[in-house]
């Protein structure tokens, strides 16, 4: 945070960062029509090197988006279709008894997790045991099997999709795993205009040619730029107060609707994502606006609402929105004789 002015991003770097990220965004927008916000967030998540959880009904293009991302970045990709009978070893890999030089030894056969971009499709269809197989890989970016640790190559992202938990045959992801996802992005239904576009393009036999727009090296460069983005003290304070408010700090009304709040990992995710967002916007610094835009995807899967809030029909998103309205950018209060101008 105590970044000096000398190692601040130059205009040139910022321009290049924006150019590269714009390429990625344009590519994704071509794959997924009418979901610009979602595409933005996915790009931010990739730049922040975070794992993403996409939730939505089947057929909304979640898998397409992730597959497209793999193509656009040229990253090594694996896809695992999570099913109830999937075992942890099916993800991490298994030691297989093999004959080597006339001796039978266990040789580790790496699983699909050893990749850059792991598409965990319908992750909540697998049992919790299998879901948990990803915990170590997501946090430490390594896999330990039979006491032997195997490093996963960088960058490593888990891009998971899940169906709404109300559906048949789903298992809720454990909180520990949810917390490891940088964002939880809701994939919503398309508008009629978008659907029209989709139908027309398919019926006309148009196939979207997806080509690699950035190299893994470019992506690495972008990630390094994220490190150099300046995070002002006031923004840090705002993030901290926001996360604290989910845990009842700051005496906000919305905070009282939350039973369990976000963890410190959420605050770190916030900071990282805000910086990535700044790169997308071509700015050398993160801002309050970035934090506010990121609040929903960062926090919605990290808070558990109080039963009274649920009875009152509140959702995670509505509570977070209220929290943002209540929480001023500065912790310095205005005098009691005035009201903040909205």
């Amino acid at each position, binding site marked *: 945070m105590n970044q000096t002015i000398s190692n*601040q991003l130059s205009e040139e770097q910022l321009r290049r960062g924006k150019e590269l990220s714009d390429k990625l965004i344009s590519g994704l927008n071509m794959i997924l029509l009418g979901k610009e916000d979602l595409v933005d967030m996915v790009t931010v998540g990739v730049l922040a090197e975070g794992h993403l959880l996409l939730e939505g009904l089947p057929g909304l293009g979640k898998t397409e988006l992730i597959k497209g991302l793999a193509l656009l970045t040229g990253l090594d990709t694996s896809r695992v279709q999570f099913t109830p009978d999937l075992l942890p070893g099916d993800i991490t890999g298994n030691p297989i008894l093999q004959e080597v030089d006339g001796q039978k030894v266990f040789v580790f056969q790496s699983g699909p997790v050893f990749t850059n971009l792991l598409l965990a499709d319908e992750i909540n269809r697998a049992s919790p045991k299998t879901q948990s197989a990803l915990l170590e890989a997501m946090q430490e970016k390594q896999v330990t099997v039979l006491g032997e640790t195997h490093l996963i190559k960088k960058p490593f992202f888990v891009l998971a999709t899940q169906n709404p938990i109300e559906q048949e045959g789903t298992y809720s992801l454990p909180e520990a795993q949810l917390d490891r996802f940088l964002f939880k992005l809701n994939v919503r239904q398309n508008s009629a205009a978008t659907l029209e576009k989709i139908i027309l393009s398919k019926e006309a036999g148009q196939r979207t040619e997806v080509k690699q727009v950035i190299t893994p090296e470019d992506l690495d460069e972008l990630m390094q730029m994220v490190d150099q983005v*300046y995070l002002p003290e*006031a923004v840090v304070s705002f993030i901290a107060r926001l996360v604290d408010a989910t845990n009842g700090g700051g005496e906000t009304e919305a905070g009282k609707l939350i039973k369990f709040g976000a963890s410190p990992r959420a605050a770190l995710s916030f900071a990282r994502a805000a910086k990535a967002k700044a790169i997308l916007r071509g700015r050398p610094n993160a801002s309050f606006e970035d934090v506010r835009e990121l609040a929903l995807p960062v926090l919605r899967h990290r808070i558990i609402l109080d039963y009274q809030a649920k009875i009152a029909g509140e959702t995670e998103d509505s509570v977070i929105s209220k929290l943002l309205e209540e929480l001023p950018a500065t912790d310095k209060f205005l005098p009691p*004789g005035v009201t903040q101008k909205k």
Partner: protein
Amino acid sequence: MGDTDKNQLYWEKGIRSTRLKINTAWFLSALARPLAGFFIIAALVLFYFRWVGDLDWMRPSFIIASLFITTLIYVVVTLAGKWEGKQDTVVRIDDSLSLNNQLSMAVSGRAPFPEIKALPKIYDWKAFYFLPPLLIGLLGLILAAFIPIKKAPPTSFNIQEPLAWEEMEEELEMLKEEELVEEEYIAEKEKELEALKTQDQEDWYEHSSLEATDHLVNQHKEEKNKLADALENAAEQLEKMESGKGNPGALKSAFNEFQESLKGMENAQMKPNKELLEQMKGISPESLKQLSPEEIEKLKSKLQEGSDSLSEGDGAGDDGEGAPQDGKKLGNGWEGSGEGEEQGSGEPGINRGPGHDELLYGDTHERLNTEKDGGLEAQDLSDFTPGDLLELQDAAPQAEEKFSGVRASGITENQGRGGNRVWKQALLPAEQEALKFYFSNEPNDK
């Protein structure tokens, strides 16, 4: 000036003015309620001064000004740590204008100042926060200043001078008019009296003041009596000298007496007036022969008049007091009352009680008509107390049938040394009534 500088100047000025506005809002918000309290207290102060009728505006103004300053100090103290800092204002502007923290970056020297934009209005005033307390306070102040009120009765009242001073004053005035006494004496006494009067009114009836008054009055009376006696004596001796002209021995004796009186007058504090004194000094057996009988008669009557005049003044003063302060009037009263422990009730004086009742030890005891030289049981049942009943007998007093010699009579067992007598006299009226009722009935009725 380039655009960058212009932008910088604009934003810096904007930050300053916004900060000032917020801090003003802080000050006014913090001041509103204490100010209402101040108005109410000021109203009470004003009301009080109007009520007591103090028309001097200096005192209430000073108190109200002090209260106001105290209120301001209180407000400033309570605002410690709440004042808006520059960085806070920058963040507010950044946020209000959605500048993506560009202003913060510019202030810290990391980015150029943003393009000029209209400064945001950070807050709206809450009228209901300020108006009710201020209106109530102001209303109280206006009412306190203009509402018609009945003034309080004066708390300070004039304390009446001690009576002795007035009497003393009158007497000195009289002496002045009669021109009988030397003026220096009168002036001196007036000065002493004035010194007593110049004390605070509250001290007039203090022990020391009354003691001094008592002393002054007594001393004056003593001097007056001395002079009256001396003048009377001089008049008598003059008469003797006149009648003893043919008898040198008697003449000489009377002249000596006359000279003694004259000497006494000269040495006393209160001297007769100079003219009279000179005339008296001029009297000698030789000069007496040269004076005509009319002249001698005139001088004699002058001396007698002076004596009478002084004696009259004395009497007049005592009647008013009624207290045993004048030895002459009491006769054998208080002059002897200070002797011995038996009757030791002390001399009359300030805060020492008034002394014995007048004539308490006089000879006005009721005669019981026993007329026997023997010890008698007291039969005056009206003066009995319940404790004395133990000594009662049914039988009549048994006087001795046979004379057994001379014995001291009138000896009482109870010498009335205070406590016992006081106790007897201190019965409650109901107790006294019960006692009277008890003894007024026949023995059979008891």
